[in-house]
């Protein structure tokens, strides 16, 4: 580029910086708007992410895990008739479950049942579990608030949710009777002592499931060695395609292998649309913000019309004038973004352990939410918010900058303030 066609960045930066503070009150108001806008964007995203993460986490922890293996037909008819062979019968599956790809796994028997106390009867899902393997896989290992967790697959005690206990009008250590169907379609019945009470979110889980040792349930139902499902956890609930393929290959040929998102399409769809929704959300907030930004820059350009004419007369090219106004806008955007990020960090830090929303949690329970909302601050969301403001901010600044660069020198110099 020939001499004179390019003003050094240092000069452009100096001019832009000093011009920015000519009307410091207006600049500060605009900077505050950008900072609060970015803070609002990130905050709302963190809350929405936290809400969805929590719903998914609750769903996964309830019993689904990341991936489940069922016998064909089980999902349509979750009865004792549709069983898969135990893990010990499949070397390939055993190998996969013991590999580093899998964080935790367990096999379960899960059948419809009826629980009867001295006073009430309720329909529930009876889950036969390996208590050691459920630790870290599902909620049950960490949710016992009264009594004890069952100690083995042969443990003959029952784990009941607190809400169900209230409905049954019974207590810890009291006896209840369970009824279900065995593989021969006969009624299988057995008495259990309530050994532990669990509390969990959402409360619907407390009324839906009861837990007993896997072998105890097997004996009650006069079953063979089969199980209803194998549930496993990978490393990231968002990236399960490879693990699902491996599981499908390792499981029996016609096994029904499904990820949590396939089992719960509502949650899966919510996760899929989340990123797109966040981008739309950012853009809407920015559009509101951009009016202020464009107005501020147009005012700044309007006030400096004569000065722009002067620098044109001195030989400054239109491209440099455009650059000068753009740099001014970029500086303002960057300062606003830094302030906004700091503000977000300072305000989100005190609530990193969760926000108590127990006042409204009951109404949101249908969606699988808990009474404490954990804001999920993702680096990619912070970067996206900053990128949206910066990129759209620069685009919004193009018009004032273009206006400034297209002025005819003499019209600018002789312009009378009106």
């Amino acid at each position: 580029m020939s001499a004179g066609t390019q003003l050094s960045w240092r000069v452009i930066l100096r001019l832009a910086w000093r011009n920015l503070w000519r009307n410091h009150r207006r600049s500060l108001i605009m900077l505050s708007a950008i900072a609060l806008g970015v803070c609002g964007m990130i905050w709302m995203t963190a809350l929405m992410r936290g809400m969805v993460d929590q719903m998914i986490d609750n769903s996964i922890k309830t019993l689904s895990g990341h991936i489940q293996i069922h016998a064909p037909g089980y999902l349509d008819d979750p009865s004792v008739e549709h069983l898969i062979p135990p893990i010990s019968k499949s070397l390939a599956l055993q190998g996969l479950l013991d590999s580093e790809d899998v964080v935790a796994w367990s096999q379960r028997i899960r059948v419809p049942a009826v629980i009867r106390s001295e006073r009430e009867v309720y329909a529930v899902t009876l889950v036969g579990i390996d208590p050691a393997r459920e630790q870290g896989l599902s909620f049950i290992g960490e949710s016992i608030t009264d009594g004890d967790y069952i100690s083995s697959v042969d443990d003959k005690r029952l784990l009941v949710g607190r809400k169900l206990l209230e409905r049954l009008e019974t207590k810890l250590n009291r006896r209840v009777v369970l009824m279900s169907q065995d593989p021969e379609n006969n009624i299988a019945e057995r008495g259990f002592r309530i050994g532990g009470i669990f509390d969990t979110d959402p409360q619907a889980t407390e009324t839906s499931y009861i837990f007993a040792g896997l072998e105890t349930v097997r004996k009650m139902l006069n079953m063979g060695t089969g199980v209803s499902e194998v549930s496993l956890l990978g490393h990231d609930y968002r990236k399960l395609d490879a693990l699902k393929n491996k599981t499908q290959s390792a499981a029996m040929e016609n096994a029904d292998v499904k990820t949590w998102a396939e089992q719960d399409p509502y949650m899966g769809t919510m996760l899929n649309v989340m990123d797109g929704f966040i981008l739309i959300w950012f853009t809407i907030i920015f559009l509101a913000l951009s009016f202020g930004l464009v107005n501020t820059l147009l005012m700044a350009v309007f006030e400096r019309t004569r000065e722009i004419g002067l620098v044109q007369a001195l030989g400054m090219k239109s491209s440099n004038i455009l650059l000068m106004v753009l740099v001014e806008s970029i500086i303002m955007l960057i300062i606003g973004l830094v302030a906004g990020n700091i503000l977000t960090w300072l305000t989100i830090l005190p609530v990193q352990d969760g926000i108590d929303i127990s006042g409204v949690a009951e109404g949101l329970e249908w969606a699988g939410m808990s009474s404490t909302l954990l804001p999920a601050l993702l680096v990619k969301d912070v970067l996206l918010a900053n990128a949206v403001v910066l990129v759209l901010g620069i685009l919004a600044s193009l018009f004032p900058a273009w206006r400034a660069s297209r002025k005819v020198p003499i019209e600018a110099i002789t312009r009378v303030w009106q």
Partner: protein
Amino acid sequence: MTIEKNNAVKCLGLCKVFSQGELAVHALSDVDINISAGEFACLSGSSGSGKTTLLNMIGGLDVATSGEITVADKRLDKMTMSELADLRLHHIGFVFQAYNLIPVLSARENVEFVMQLQGLEAGQRRQQAMEILEQVGLTGMEDRRPAELSGGQQQRVAVARAIVSKPALILADEPTANLDSANSDKLMTLMRELNASKGTTFIISTHDEGVMKFAKRLVRLHDGRIVKDEMIED
């Protein structure tokens, strides 16, 4: 009219019409003028006579309605905005009556600005700026911003900026309008010295008799026409 080789500026049949609603105002009508390199010419005339318009068109800041302007052997009407900016940057220095300086830059930075556009090294820029500020009597005020300088001091900074890069042509529009007579004389003396020592061509618009006495050529305009063009004996 023939074009002489040492012409700094040549205007031929220059017209400028401003439209004010349905009214057409003829700011310049059929102006022919040649200004040779090294001249020290004053355009005089009453307010509205067209001297500032002529100056602006010679500087490529405004476009003629008809006619030709040639500066440094280049036809301005054939040049793009970018080429005009280059011409102004490398060949022409401007001094305006008012609004001369960039308010956010100090006196030295204002003087350095044109040299920065020209791509001169920082050290060279600084040295030349300090020298020229000393010449116009502003030593010690280099770091003051325009708002911290008097009208006369601001005008001297503007002159310093116009001459620091040694352009071949300096266009000054009422350069002494905001100065007292002593400062006005100092400024005109400085311009004459530069004209004599460097051969810089000056075209100055003025209606100040005190300025006209410095002129080597006096061009008088009236209602957009040249009514008198005379060389002045020293």
